[in-house]
């Protein structure tokens, strides 16, 4: 067996690869949860400090899954100066983090503040696209992963793998875009690494991020229960359609939805709605994300087709290409599973934000297994995990 593109699709092939190779060798109870980010208990001493003043950078509290942290510092070139956090003029992370990190709110047994830790690699062609670029993507992606665990994102590292022939002016522009995205997300880029490998003028970025899950907040896919409602923050498929259009040389107005979802996530928490789980809807699309939720919670999910937002231009593009928006990747969309009684509260909170203004309640959680959809026609269909690469059809 060799690696094929399907292993990177975010669908079933990816899941099997992760389970059969990485799951086998890196067996760890935190990793095994396969959440967007690892949520880790802080050593008692740090927990106190973290709750008031943010966390020391480079904390080794998390499991080291093969980062360059073990190398002598001298062997790690620093990231390009363009992302130097000292010049950041956006909101200081400590300020926003501090607000959410007070003492644990009352209820006995509520979890203490915990560390959230995530990493993500970014590979995209073209490097710059309508609505974003690989730099913005790499910041928003990791920040979103932290947010989805209920964390307040604080610090990022970035590792660049550059190919010979890459235009330095382009790298400069991408780094500037990362810095801007980091400011917007309220995080600092505080560690980096640069390698040059291969020829072809390409660029790959890995980012890792840490954040703090405030005391009393517990977000996990297995917390979902029958009666919960599912909220989607906006229309599906824009990023996928945008990238595909660019690759195919099709001119249309479709922009990537690449965005940091901090506003939506914080509005949901602030609304008081009981948020059970959150997921950003990236590779593999809504279909993959909901199957994960259904699997890990042992429940079924039923969607209402007519309530799922898809922009008209994206819908038309999908029709043309034979693609299903349910399986298309997004870079600025999330779902939240909220207690059914809080659904309207969560919806109006999300709709009050920039990145959630088109939010909709799209379905609910019930007993049983699997993901289903009530179609526009009134029929029922199963919504399976994405298989293969999510490719356009022949005819």
């Amino acid at each position, binding site marked *: 067996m060799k690696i094929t593109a399907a292993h990177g699709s975010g669908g079933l092939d990816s899941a099997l690869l992760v389970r059969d190779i990485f799951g086998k060798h890196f067996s760890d109870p935190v990793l095994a949860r396969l959440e967007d980010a690892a949520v880790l208990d802080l050593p008692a001493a740090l927990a106190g400090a973290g709750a008031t003043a943010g966390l020391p950078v480079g904390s080794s509290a998390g499991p080291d899954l093969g980062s360059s942290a073990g190398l002598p510092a001298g062997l790690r070139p620093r990231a390009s100066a363009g992302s130097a956090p000292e010049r950041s003029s956006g909101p200081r992370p400590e300020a926003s983090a501090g607000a959410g990190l007070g003492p644990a709110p009352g209820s006995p047994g509520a979890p203490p503040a915990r560390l959230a830790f995530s990493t993500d690699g970014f590979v995209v062609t073209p490097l710059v696209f309508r609505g974003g670029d690989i730099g913005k993507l790499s910041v928003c992606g990791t920040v979103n992963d932290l947010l989805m665990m209920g964390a307040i994102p604080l610090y990022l590292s970035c590792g660049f793998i550059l190919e010979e022939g890459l235009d330095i002016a382009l790298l400069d522009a991408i780094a500037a875009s990362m810095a801007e995205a980091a400011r917007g997300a309220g995080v600092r880029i505080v560690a980096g690494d640069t390698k040059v490998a291969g020829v072809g003028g390409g660029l790959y970025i890995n980012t890792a991020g840490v954040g703090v899950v405030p005391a009393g907040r517990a977000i996990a896919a297995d917390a979902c229960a029958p009666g919960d409602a599912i909220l989607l923050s906006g229309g599906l498929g824009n990023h996928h359609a945008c990238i595909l259009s660019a690759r*195919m040389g099709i001119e249309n107005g479709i922009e990537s939805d690449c965005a940091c979802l901090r506003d939506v996530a914080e509005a949901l928490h602030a609304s008081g709605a009981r948020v059970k789980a959150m997921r950003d809807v990236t590779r593999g699309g809504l279909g993959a994300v909901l199957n994960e939720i259904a699997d890990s919670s042992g429940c079924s999910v039923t969607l209402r087709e007519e309530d799922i937002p898809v922009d008209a231009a994206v819908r038309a593009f999908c029709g043309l290409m034979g693609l299903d928006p349910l399986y298309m990747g997004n870079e600025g969309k999330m779902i939240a599973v909220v207690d059914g009684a809080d659904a309207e509260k969560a919806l109006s909170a999300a709709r009050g934000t920039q990145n959630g203004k088109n939010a909709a309640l799209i379905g609910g959680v019930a007993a049983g297994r699997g993901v289903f959809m009530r179609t526009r026609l009134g029929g029922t269909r199963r919504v399976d995990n994405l298989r293969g690469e999510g490719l356009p059809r*022949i005819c």
Partner: protein
Amino acid sequence: MGYDGPPLSIMEVCGTHTAAIFKTGVRSLLSPKIRLISGPGCPVCVTPAAYIDRCAALAKTGRHAVMSFGDMLKAPGARGSLSDARAEGGRVEMMYAPFEALERAKREPDTIFALAAVGFETTIPAYALVLEEALARGIENIRLVTALKSVLPALAWVSERGGADGFLCPGHVSVITGAGVYARLAELYDRPFVIAGFEGEHILAAIFEIVRAVSEKRAVVRNLYPSAVREEGNAKARALIAKYFEPCAAFWRGLGAISDSGFRLRREYARFDGGGSDVPDEDVLPEGCRCGDVITGRIDPNECPAFGAACRPEHPVGPCMVSAEGVCGIWHSHM
């Protein structure tokens, strides 16, 4: 639907219809007396293994780059898929449209770009246009590896063997062929042929028409997709096909050879011919594979012993399990 007459079966011929039927939940709305079966209308599914092996071999010559629709990449040949060939170092590139080959060929004059030219009447004009453009621009390093087919002879083949009580005719193919061509089939085989678009409502309307016609024993032809399908079809597209291609016998995976059901390049364009229409026509289905029975509606996918067991989307035995329009893959993900 309240149909309570004798059981009847309706064959949807086009893979896009199969996909739409499941996506819109049409089956869940029908009377259990109405059986929907899927016909040989997914071009990948009827492509013989020997053809895929031919493309895979080309990908490994070092001189060729095989360009293929994504749909074809995982379809199994006797010696693995194009996706496997790529993982083994072969040069296989996914194309979204055949025209991409022109630019690639121009940029890399020392590589021969071999298009895995698979498709029905809907896709063939695009390959013809690639040739037309290649000729106009003097691009010589393009080859077509053809597995091009015509849907109608396969419908006749199925009808002759009893196939189905009525046919839901392919919307896209009918745009090219026209609605008129079904009149002869309806008369010859004494059953209704109804053309429909791809929305759930279109499909339901067509099923209603077919059920009514079967109940009243009328072998009608109905065009319920008049916004796209005309009686005479698209003569321009057919002329374009005829300019570059000529009819030939074609080998359908699971069905066998059907005379005059394929297209090959005309002799004067032989220098663009990468082979394909000449692959050996022996039925070499893997042991236990019942694709032929599935795509002619003799059994449902889940009646095939390999379905979901030896044959899964991750390791397909037949192409119907991996093509986006393959009936087994659609059943596997929706049932």
